[in-house]
């Protein structure tokens, strides 16, 4: 089937001249014009754009298109502006969006107003053999507004390629072929002052191997500071749960960087800010916990027999209530003068130039050397501890290993840009598998305690509470079984991570030369 071709009408032509372009050459019929407002959507962290997708609400239709070639993937009729994927009716569009945007809100990014006319090109039987659509684009709906650009879209009809070829030639004389959707998307976002891909929760850092360690540490910390700043408004407006999540990860990474990238700043400075960020992290602990439980409500319910699924709802209603309070506390904290002071102080420190002759022992060392040393040391500790656990399985040891792995993961992410990208990605992926196993084990153990504890807080004079308590007991038992399964998988998961091939990769990338040659 022929694909649609789009042309951008040259400035010297008026859309009204299209008639002349066709008259005498083609028989045609003009359909009444349609006026639409198009709104482009994406999540705060550009999940659609990163996959080269565009979601637009145009007229009464929500459509997902491929950004590069404008290919329509899915669409559905819907008057409401989309917010979460679960607001959409069951449909292929929703199925495609769900794994991409997950719990994130779709934000309206930019609008354009279009007025379209369709010319149906007819053959001798008055059969439509091609369509020509002119689209005038304006920033507002009124016809008095100036037209920013006019597109001519040729939509071939299957089985009549000759007409489309002839038309394409004529259109090429009055305009230039353009990927229309891409053109519209980028120009509309630019007018709305939005930069696609400008925010990501991931650490996209580019460090220089030879740069001093203290200056490099500041590059990392400044990036994390920006992430915190970028998410504050979304937390306060309670748009979705992931603003807080990204914000907290930035805090954890900051704390990890401060304590792991050793001796690059004066000790008292490091200690001071470590304490500050510990306090900042505590402010949001409760809210994040509640978010996690509420996000998994459906999963928890699915673990129960069908007859019990409704019974547990009072527990989650109670958590929802707690969440409202927790959110208020967080907002209050973010608005407090104490918070503003701490952030200002931190920003000032980040902006200070590094001293010419620092006291800190590692401050002037090239960052790549320090990175190698730290990563390799942490890696060997993970292997040593894991081996020990294989011999003596104790739950507390697994917990400690989980923390070690997390520290190693953060280090590898901070310094990923200093090492070969593919190798790093592979090693991080393998580390992640081990972390998932340890993380699941830990989550399951925390969940059992937390859920039981919360269920006990339900008012006992309400008969619904008793049912909820029974259901929670059942759920906790199920989680306990699951935890045993996860634990049983540890040995294999660890063995894979500690495989000789992997150890060799770590040694080659991170062991310092002196050590290797010894």
């Amino acid at each position, binding site marked *: 089937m022929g694909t649609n071709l789009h042309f951008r009408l040259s400035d010297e032509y008026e859309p009204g001249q299209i008639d002349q372009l066709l008259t005498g050459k083609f028989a045609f019929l003009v359909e009444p014009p349609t006026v639409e407002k198009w709104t482009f959507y994406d999540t705060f962290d550009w999940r659609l754009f990163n996959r080269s997708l565009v979601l637009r609400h145009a007229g009464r239709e929500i459509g997902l298109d491929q950004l590069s070639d404008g290919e329509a993937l899915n669409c559905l*009729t819907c008057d409401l502006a989309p917010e979460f994927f679960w607001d959409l009716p069951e449909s292929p569009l929703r199925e495609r969006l769900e794994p991409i945007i997950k719990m994130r809100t779709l934000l309206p990014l930019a609008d354009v107003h279009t007025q379209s006319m369709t010319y149906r090109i007819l053959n001798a*039987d*008055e*059969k439509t053999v091609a369509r020509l659509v002119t689209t005038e684009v304006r920033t507002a709906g009124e016809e008095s507004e100036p037209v920013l650009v006019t597109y001519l879209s040729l939509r071939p*009809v299957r*089985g*009549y390629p000759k007409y489309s070829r002839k038309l394409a030639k004529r259109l090429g004389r009055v305009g230039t072929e353009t990927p229309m959707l891409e053109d519209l998307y980028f120009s509309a976002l630019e007018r709305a002052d939005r930069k696609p891909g400008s925010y990501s929760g991931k650490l996209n850092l580019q460090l220089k191997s030879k740069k001093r360690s203290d200056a490099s540490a500041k590059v990392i910390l400044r990036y994390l500071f920006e992430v915190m700043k970028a998410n504050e408004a979304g937390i306060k407006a309670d748009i979705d749960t992931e603003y807080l999540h990204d914000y907290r990860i930035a805090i954890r990474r900051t704390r990890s960087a401060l304590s792991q990238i050793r001796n690059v700043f004066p000790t008292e400075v490091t200690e001071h800010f470590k304490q500050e960020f510990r306090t900042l992290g505590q402010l949001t602990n409760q809210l994040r916990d509640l978010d996690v439980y509420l996000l998994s409500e459906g999963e928890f319910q699915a673990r129960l027999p069908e007859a019990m699924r409704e019974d547990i709802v009072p527990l989650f209603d109670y958590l929802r209530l707690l969440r409202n309070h927790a959110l208020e506390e967080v907002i209050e904290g973010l608005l407090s003068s104490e918070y503003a002071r701490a952030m200002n102080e931190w920003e000032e420190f980040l902006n200070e130039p590094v001293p010419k002759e620092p006291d800190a022992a590692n401050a002037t060392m090239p960052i790549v050397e320090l990175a190698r040393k730290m990563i390799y040391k942490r890696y060997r500790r993970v292997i040593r501890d894991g081996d020990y656990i294989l011999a003596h399985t104790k739950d507390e040891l697994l917990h400690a290993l989980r923390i070690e792995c997390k520290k190693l993961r953060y280090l590898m992410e901070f310094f990923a840009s200093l090492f070969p990208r593919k190798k790093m990605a592979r090693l991080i992926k393998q580390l992640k598998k081990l972390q998932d196993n340890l993380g699941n084990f830990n989550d399951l153990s925390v969940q059992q305690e937390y859920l039981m504890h919360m269920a006990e807080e339900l008012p006992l004079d309400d008969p619904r509470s008793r049912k909820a308590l029974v259901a929670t007991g059942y759920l906790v038992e199920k989680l306990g079984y699951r935890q045993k399964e996860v634990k049983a998988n540890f040995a294999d998961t660890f063995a894979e991570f500690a495989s000789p091939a992997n150890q060799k990769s770590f040694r080659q990338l991170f062991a310092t030369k002196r050590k290797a040659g010894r």
Partner: protein
Amino acid sequence: MTILALYSNKGGVGKTAAAVNLAYLAAQSGLVTLICDLDPQASATFYFRVKPKLKPKARGLVRAHKPIDRSIKGTDYENLDLLPADFTHRNLDITFNRQRSRKQQLKEILNPFREEYDLIILDTPPTINILAENIFNAADDLLVPLIPSTLSIQTHAQLLSFLKKNKYRSNGVYSFFSFVDGRKKMHRELATWARGNFNGVLRSVIPYLSHVEQMGIYREPVPAFAPASRASKAYQELWEEIHQEILNERK
């Protein structure tokens, strides 16, 4: 993807009109639809203003292992394509007879389109030989128009017993009344009798209406040239029932 065949071993019962109007309504509802005109009389092709391939050398449906997608034509409507009637269809029976696995030919020919279309509607000529069996094998569901006459009812009974005898599943056989005159007592009685004695008789009926005959003048589906007419509403109702009862059930 569903393949729905408008089938009857009697002629002139409103197969093509139903196929054309249902295909149009399906496409309007958002299903990417292909209508295959298997009847050498090419009526469905004519309604969509497409020229049938009447030269014997044309690329045929059954000249076979070649792709037929190059024969497919877009219609005047979004989401709706047509496989035009082909002169070689006249000899479909003979061609199928010569080939191995001769009763599965049509099914295999349509297989490549399962990905591309949500719904394929077959408009078939009246037949009960090898082509018919190809249709039974290819279609997920048969939709049989019945005219309210004793003969038509008898023919339908024959069809059901043929399907049973030859081990074709008999669920997936649906019928609806066409050319109904609500004022005639006999029409009402026959419809009631059929509902009591056959499975799969749909509630919707297509009345005898001039708008259906005018399709040949306008060369458009009824809901396209007379959207508010009784005929259009009747097809709309029939389509909704098919969508609910047959297509949604299959999912």
